[in-house]
């Protein structure tokens, strides 16, 4: 009974049934530094992760573009 978090090319396996916020903390990901999407839709971090969920995390920090 697991869910998966994907940040850049790294994958984190977490237990389902916990909130996304707890899953981020357990994976040592600073919640403020990412935006989470499931099937392309934005989700909030109180979302309870279900078995088989794949959560794509988008890093928000950028340092210059051009």
């Amino acid at each position: 009974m697991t869910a998966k978090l994907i940040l850049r090319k790294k994958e984190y396996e977490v237990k389902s049934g916990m909130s996304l916020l707890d899953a981020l903390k357990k994976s040592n990901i600073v919640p403020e530094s990412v935006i989470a999407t499931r099937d392309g839709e934005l989700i909030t971090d109180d979302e309870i992760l279900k078995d088989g969920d794949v959560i794509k995390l988008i890093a928000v920090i950028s340092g210059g573009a051009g």
Partner: protein
Amino acid sequence: MKCRKCGGKASINMRQHRLALCKEHYLEWIPEQTERFIKKYRMFTKDEKILVAVSGGKDSLALWDILTRLGYQADGLYLALGIDGGIDYSDESHRLTEEFAQANNLKLHVVNMEQEYGYSIPTLSQVSHRGHGKPCAVCGLAKRHEMNRIARDLGYDVLATGHNLDDEAAVLFGNTLHWSAEYLLRQGPVLPESDGLARKVKPLCRFYEREMTAYAIARGIEYIYDECPFAEGSQQIFYKEALNQLETARPGSKLTFYTRFLEARQSGNLFIEKDIEHAHLHPCPQCGQPTSTPDLCSFCRMVEKAKTG
């Protein structure tokens, strides 16, 4: 979590505002707030011509999108810096910027540094021996120079950049750590026009970086996701990460840090040394210790208040 406006499922929760919104209402809220800040800081009016510095990143493309939706006359400026980094960084960001401009029927000016001056930014950094082996200092200098030149040469009233609150808070944090008074006194949402310098504004300066990412995703803006290859390990990113740790533990810290700074700067009291010797102190009528508060000192007032329940 529910949207405060419609009760539907929320797409984003902004802890610092205690506000959760669904996608639809979030896409309305961001432009509304941007308009509010444009007016609050008197950035520009609908009669003025705005040049938006676009890099292909989420913030500048989102800014261009928002200004256009709000009905401002906003054209874009893309500076081709010639950064490859093994990921065609500049070419890819240029492509995304061009696509955005075409899809939205917007006017985009492009300046290619190599064609204009004979050097890409990394090469210019090497030959000029500036920046201790990293081109970031040269890049910043060249961007400021070129953005100002184009804004003035083409008759724009104002130059707008996509700096968000995290960018501003990181700069503020760095300048505070070093007590760089001169820089602190210059930092703000608007840098007024002066001799030879175009007015510069930062309409997104009150939004967290996280909020701008969410806006770009919700709006379907395709932006360059990769960081600049030279940004890795940069001090600015380190400060941003540190501030995000703080924000996670204490929601609203970044916002307070920045907005209280702006208030202090505007009040004119930042770095003005108070004349402590001649401060208006008088003896507390109860305990006799010096106090600046009228009547009883703060301690005696607290004790009095405690006694009276």
